[in-house]
């Protein structure tokens, strides 16, 4: 400090001093753990932790998002290293125990809305790296009510029985008969990626049905489609590169990620290394095909199809094109799109009612938007047009009833406001 510093610079110096005092020690990245933390950041991206651990408009990782489960809403906890409200007082062992066993430092049990049945497969080294990254975040004080479930689900010891039935702890074991790429993909898909949480159907107790892995499920009133190698319902017609392009850019083969997958692509997969995306694609393509039998299409002469066709031509064809081919990169293709023929039509109904916005990525930043038609089409009309989309241009899937539309409409209308 030299004497020619003028008085107002003292003010600045005081400000700096105050700023340094107010940055708690945990936020200052320790140079010794920098590489570890950066590795953890990549893993946190692969796990898309930010998606659930951030409230709408809230600080990233500070928790407070209400996760809607069939049993009630669960508020996600604060992952920043704040001592009072976050994980500031946790040790690396505490963190690894939460990831691997679904237990808090005090031994009480977490709910599997936190996908510890997947994260148990994450190696201890990776769990430590994730912890190192979370420790490097600026602590945010954010009190989250962690006891929002109604009776009897608020009894956390009930997870003992649930775990006994559905939880198999243990790190990922590579299959020595398979390639390194396959095993890397399996580690990511089954572990941090926790793809099965959405893409595997759930049983009545909220556990993924192990014998129907990746055959498709429902999340937030959207369909998570079959991502096995099934030719009709899954990725059977997709090449490994198609899958990589989809995860990286949000679109491939004329279809564009929307609904919750938009967030997965934007927050997570578009930021992952190509090698990891390729590994995930190889695993999904090679691990096998499973899915229901393809029904024969509803006849074009069916009354619902006639009504559906009229609505499609008048309302949808301007963008999705009369032939259902869409416009590459802008308007999704419906002909041959697997989302159109899933047994569960929730996504089709949902997007017609509320509209939707597709994923925006660095290479495809447009984020095309579909307008809402819920105000304009009745339940019967939406059922007809969705039935038409599911059974035209070579598509074949079960017809949709007005009752199904009504059920989805009741959950998604006005929900965003």
């Amino acid at each position, binding site marked *: 400090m030299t004497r020619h510093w003028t008085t107002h610079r003292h003010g600045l110096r005081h400000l700096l001093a105050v700023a340094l005092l107010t940055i708690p020690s945990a936020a200052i990245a320790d140079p010794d753990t920098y590489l570890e933390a950066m590795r953890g950041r990549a893993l946190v991206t692969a796990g898309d932790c930010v998606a659930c651990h951030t409230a709408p408009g809230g600080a990233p990782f500070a928790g407070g998002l209400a996760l809607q489960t069939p049993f009630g809403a669960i508020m996600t906890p604060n992952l920043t290293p704040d001592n009072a409200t976050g994980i500031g007082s946790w040790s690396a062992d505490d963190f690894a125990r939460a990831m691997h066993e679904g237990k808090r430092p005090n031994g009480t049990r977490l709910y599997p809305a936190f996908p510890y049945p997947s994260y148990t497969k994450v190696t201890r080294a990776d769990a430590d790296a994730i912890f190192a990254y979370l420790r490097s975040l600026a602590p945010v004080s954010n009190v989250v009510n962690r006891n929002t479930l109604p009776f009897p689900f608020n009894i956390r010891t009930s997870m003992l029985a649930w775990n006994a039935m559905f939880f198999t702890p243990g790190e990922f074991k590579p299959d020595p008969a398979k390639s390194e790429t396959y095993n890397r993909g399996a580690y990511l898909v089954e572990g941090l990626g926790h793809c099965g949480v959405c893409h595997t159907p759930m049983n009545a107790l909220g556990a993924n049905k192990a014998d129907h892995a990746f055959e498709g499920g429902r999340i937030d009133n959207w369909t998570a489609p079959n991502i096995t190698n099934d030719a009709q319902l899954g990725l059977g017609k997709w090449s490994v590169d198609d899958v990589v392009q989809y995860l990286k850019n949000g679109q491939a083969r004329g279809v564009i990620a929307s609904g919750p997958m938009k967030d997965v692509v934007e927050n997570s997969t578009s930021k992952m290394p190509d090698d990891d995306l390729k590994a995930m694609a190889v695993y999904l393509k090679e691990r096998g095909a499973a899915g229901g039998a393809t029904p024969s299409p509803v006849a074009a002469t069916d009354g619902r199809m006639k009504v559906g066709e009229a609505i499609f031509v008048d309302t949808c064809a301007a963008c999705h094109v009369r032939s259902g081919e869409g416009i590459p990169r802008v308007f999704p293709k419906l002909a041959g799109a697997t989302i159109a023929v899933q047994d569960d039509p929730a996504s089709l109904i949902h997007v017609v009612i509320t509209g*939707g916005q597709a994923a925006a990525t660095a290479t495809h930043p447009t984020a095309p938007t579909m307008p809402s038609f819920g105000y304009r089409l009745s339940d019967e009309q939406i059922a007809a047009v969705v039935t038409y989309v599911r059974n035209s241009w070579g598509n074949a899937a079960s017809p949709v009833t007005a009752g199904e539309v009504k059920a989805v409409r009741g959950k998604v209308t006005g929900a965003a406001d």
Partner: protein
Amino acid sequence: MHTDDRSAMRAKFAPPTETPRHASMSRRSLLATAALLITTSGAAAKVVTKVLPWRPNEVYPVTPVTPGGWLFFTAEEAAVVDAIVDRLIPADELGPGAKESGVTTFIDRQLTGPYGGHDWLYMQGPFATNPLPTQGLQSPLTPRQQYRQGLAALAAYCKANYNGRGFADLSGDEKDKLLAGMEKGDVKFDGFSSRMLFNAVHGNTMEGFFADPIYGGNKDMAGWKLIGFPGVRYDFRDVIDNPNKPYTLPPVSMQGQPAWGVR
């Protein structure tokens, strides 16, 4: 209510009364005024970055007009407007006319809304006494006032000149002759421009006959069927790619078309 809106608007756009002390202050106070206008006018200025502005279920739908009864007209006024629009676009072998298509309902509902008060027009004058045709409306009268005063003047004119009969009671030829005189401005009403009334009904009849049925006129898309207008479609590449082939799709309105089934 509309007058209140106007005076509020006037106050808002009034120049600042305080005299700026020097030039730089002048610019600053101008900026301050501009900022205030943005924050108080209700048209919230929004900076959009990184994400596109879209929310699920975001729509600004029109409330469909439910026919039946009158919200602005008296029964007598409505009967006269019915009689006028029936002469302007009569039913014939090509299809229903303006009256059958609900044009009077369309005008009635429009007069109760912002159009009826010219809420979106500058209405403070000065008004030219002998305007060029390109100068548009030169009157402080809102459409509501034009209809109310104009129809009263027409009723008085008919009573005085057709042995006490009202417009609706005249023969077709008498109606046409009177309307033609109003169109030219040759017919002199007491205290109101007959031409202004004619122009109002004439313009609104065309609007009602060809506007989307959701607004109360153009029932069953009769106006669109008459002229072959396709309705609210917006992609005609298939048609353009097939020149000299007949266009076969039926018109479609904001609320659909019969092939969509029952709502």
